């Protein structure tokens, strides 16, 4: 039994994934993105639409028609959403930090709490016992002054693991782009867009005895970046610093029929924003404490009860509020997993009740089930009540914040089918899902008097759509081929809006593409892999009455990993050509993306100890 799987948080993930489409990012694909952030991994490999303001700039999610604050980003089960903003910036999360990245489709508020509405992104560390000393260093460089360096040193024996990861990524980011609206100066250079991201992650894990595991994780990072003007603005002198310190401790107790976990975390996020042109200097700090207890009792050969408590408290220190403000939440969760027909049919039922220091939060719950119809086919269905609590900014921002704001809440249901088979050297996996979700009291910032925006519970939104995944893998001798196709179709429309003569009803939400298609072709020989990624994103509306939009874009990337084994070490050479077809595109209006550009890199890994 792999010891890392006995940890209690892994149990929770397993439960939340019953009856729902969940996809891990393939490890060979992930290897091709070791110099990139989670934002790039997801945008090329999942139907999650990443709202990206440019390389190194803010990247947030639109998942199943929801917005950034309706996606939970969970680091080993802890929600990383900034408590003031209610969202996470994925560009500040290098993919190399996480051994495992999983995309959980669909909401799961009863397990993951506020914000898990459209779906959840799991970033997991899975260090292994008994691996000896391992070290690897990645050096990368690329167009526009891109420089990457990251190192991972891990030591583990049968009782103890330590893993240290350090990274720095920086770029002048002064790429050229084409401004089609300016006929006199068509080719322009991006200005004031440099960035410098630095971070350290440390994990320590003890196997105290056969029944107890203790782990401590820390992730500290300091990120500097200049924020460019959008293409029509005359100039920008804005600068932003995002610093974060995250420390978690995790104790798991494992018995034959009972497991229990105690977890606690402290999270500090600082965002300091400076604009010398407008003399705007904004300092914001949030501190969040989370304490959690979870218990799993196998009370019958086939049935397992789980229950737990969660307490979380977030405080914001900012000049934009009247004073320091704190939101606290205490939750009780209980559920039961039923297993019938020798494990062919699983059902999970759960409920969550919460106390919230400002207003009330709904009771949430879910019922999900999956059935192995044949050896090849699994049928899944799930329904859940989901919610998102108002963020600190929505409640307290001055002027505009509204203490009487209600949580966004609604119901989601989905059904999916997985088909899996092995034909000689081919393995085939096909998955299709359809879902529907209605959210009431959807919060929108609507500018009021003097243009000062104020959040209001203004509308009802109905999101529905389908996703498919097609994977064909071929392995024979040293050859491997992979073809992946991931499609997403989302209709996310306003169903009701209280404004007079409003023209948003039945209209698609802004920046929610109806169609996304990702295709990947990998050709591998031994440890060398050539991968072609292609991403298509359909029309994105930029106004809520759908009167303005951006055209679809298609962007490709070709990446090559070439591995050389020596007695001393393993060397992996890496090269990439991004935006292969040199397309002029923008994900968001007025935020140009680079034309064709290149990356090269090398990874040096110590040889694996032969035990």
């Amino acid at each position: 039994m792999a010891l890392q799987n006995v940890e209690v948080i892994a149990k929770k993930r397993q439960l939340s994934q019953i009856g729902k489409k969940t996809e891990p990012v393939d490890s060979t694909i992930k290897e091709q993105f070791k110099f990139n952030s989670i934002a790039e991994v997801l945008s090329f490999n999942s139907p999650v639409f990443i709202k990206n303001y440019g390389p190194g700039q803010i990247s947030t999610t639109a998942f199943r028609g929801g917005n950034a604050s309706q996606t939970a980003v969970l680091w080993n089960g802890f929600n990383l959403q900034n408590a003031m903003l209610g969202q996470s910036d994925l560009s500040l999360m290098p993919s190399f930090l996480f051994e495992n990245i999983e995309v959980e489709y669909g909401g799961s508020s009863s397990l993951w709490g506020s914000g898990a509405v459209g779906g959840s992104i799991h970033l997991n560390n899975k260090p292994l016992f008994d691996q000896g000393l391992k070290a690897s260093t990645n050096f990368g460089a690329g167009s526009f002054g891109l420089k990457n360096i990251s190192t991972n040193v891990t030591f583990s024996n049968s009782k103890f693991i330590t893993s240290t990861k350090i990274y720095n990524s920086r770029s002048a980011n002064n790429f050229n782009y084409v401004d089609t609206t300016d006929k006199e100066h068509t080719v322009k250079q991006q200005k004031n867009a440099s960035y410098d991201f630095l971070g350290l992650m440390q994990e320590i894990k003890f196997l105290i005895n056969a029944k107890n595991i203790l782990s401590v994780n820390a992730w500290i990072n300091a990120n500097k970046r200049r924020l460019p003007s959008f293409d029509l603005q005359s100039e920008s002198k804005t600068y932003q610093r995002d610093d974060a310190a995250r420390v978690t401790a995790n104790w798991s107790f494992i018995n034959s029929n009972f497991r229990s976990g105690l977890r606690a975390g402290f999270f500090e996020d600082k965002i300091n924003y400076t604009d010398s042109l407008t003399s705007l200097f904004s300092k914001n700090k949030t501190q969040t404490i989370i304490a959690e207890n979870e218990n799993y009792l196998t009370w019958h050969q086939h049935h397992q009860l789980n229950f737990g408590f969660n307490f979380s408290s977030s405080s914001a220190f900012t000049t934009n509020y009247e004073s320091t403000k704190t939101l606290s939440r205490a939750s009780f969760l209980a559920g039961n997993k039923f297993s019938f027909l020798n494990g062919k049919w699983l059902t999970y039922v759960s409920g969550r009740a919460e106390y919230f220091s400002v207003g009330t939060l709904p009771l949430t719950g879910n019922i999900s089930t999956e059935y192995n119809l044949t050896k090849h086919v699994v049928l899944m269905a799930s329904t859940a009540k989901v919610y998102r609590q108002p963020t600190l900014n929505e409640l307290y921002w001055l002027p505009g914040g509204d203490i009487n704001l209600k949580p966004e809440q609604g119901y989601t249901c989905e059904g999916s089918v997985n088909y899996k088979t092995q034909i000689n050297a081919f393995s085939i996996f096909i998955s299709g899902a359809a879902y529907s979700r209605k959210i009431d009291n959807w919060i929108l910032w609507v500018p009021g008097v003097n243009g000062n925006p104020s959040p209001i519970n203004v509308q009802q939104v109905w999101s529905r759509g389908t996703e498919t995944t097609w994977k064909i893998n071929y392995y024979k001798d040293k050859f491997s081929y992979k073809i992946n196709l991931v499609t997403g179709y989302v209709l996310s429309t306003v169903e009701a809006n209280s404004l007079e003569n409003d023209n948003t009803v039945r209209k698609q939400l802004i920046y929610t593409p109806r169609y996304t298609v990702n295709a990947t072709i990998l050709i591998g020989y031994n440890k060398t892999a050539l991968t072609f990624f292609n991403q298509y994103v359909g029309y994105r509306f930029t106004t809520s009455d759908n009167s303005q939009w951006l055209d679809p874009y298609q962007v490709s990337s070709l990446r090559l990993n070439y591995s050389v084994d020596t007695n001393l070490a393993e060397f992996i050479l890496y090269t990439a050509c991004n935006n292969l077809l040199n397309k002029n595109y923008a994900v968001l209006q007025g935020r140009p993306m680079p034309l064709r550009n290149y990356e090269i890199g090398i990874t040096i890994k110590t040889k694996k100890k032969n035990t």
Partner: protein
Amino acid sequence: MKNIIVISIFLSVTVSCVKDKPQDSVQPQVQLTNAKKVYIINEGNFGSGNSSISLYDTGNDAVIENFYQTQNTASPAIGDVAQSLTKINGKFYLVVNNSGKIIVCDDQFKKLTQITKLTSPRYILPITNQKAYVSDYNGNEISIIDLNSNTKVDSIACPGFTEEMALIYNKAFVTNTKRNYTYVINTVNNTKADSIDVGTNAGSIVIDKNDKVWVLSSGDQTNTIAGKLSRINPITNQIEISFSFNVSESPFRLCLNKTKDTLYFLSGGIYRMAISDNNLPSAAFIAKGTKTFYGLGINPNDHTLYASDALNFNQKSNIYIYNTDGSQKKYFKAGLIANGFYFE
């Protein structure tokens, strides 16, 4: 067989139902009459470059959207955030705030030239036939424009975010949303002559039939500072009378009717008061309802009141025309975030 069924189920999930390509809105062919026109300035979303000008024909209620684009097909982009429109010497001056420029057009809205080297211009005020002042958000200065060459020739240091301006007796009164003062500039020698404490966040200014200057300050809800309406004697630069609002209110967009005896402003709803009133109006002349009034203007030709509702600031604005008794006369759609009107 089973595989075929499974595959066909997946295919049907992959293929979906709504056509992705949006329908381009077709601009109906409109016949313009000889009646007076109203130009609506739609500032668009900050950072999105989707400003536009809508033309409204009071003769037949026809609306031409994207009128600037229609008249300038070769180079149709206005830039980011069209802030204000002023006609000087028969030419339109369209101030584009976040692109740092003023587009100069002929009376048919065909672009003639543009004035650049401005930081974030807001309003233009003609001082003489040759000279105009331009207020600025971030520039900490008033730009002086030579109207013959349409170039910036000089500037007057003026810290803070300067906004609307008014000219009387060789004095330009310049409102400022970052300072508590309205500055008085001697327009003969282009120097700052005086400053008047009008309260926090003052952005709009008018001159009434008695040659008195009225300045409206919005206050600051964050720091619980109330807005103020002040009447200034332009000869002495003294405040003659001042009215305080409740802290919860944020009045803005002060306007005057044609006879220059009635003030209008926005504060949620639309308010009006006579220049001779001794108190602020206690109730809105036109209630807010669910609207977000953002632009306000009085048509000098028929005295009707034009107000724009920016809705959620991310869709086409609603333009409401009200009769002088406050009843709604008309309603139509203009571009994104209409902030003001130019009446022929």
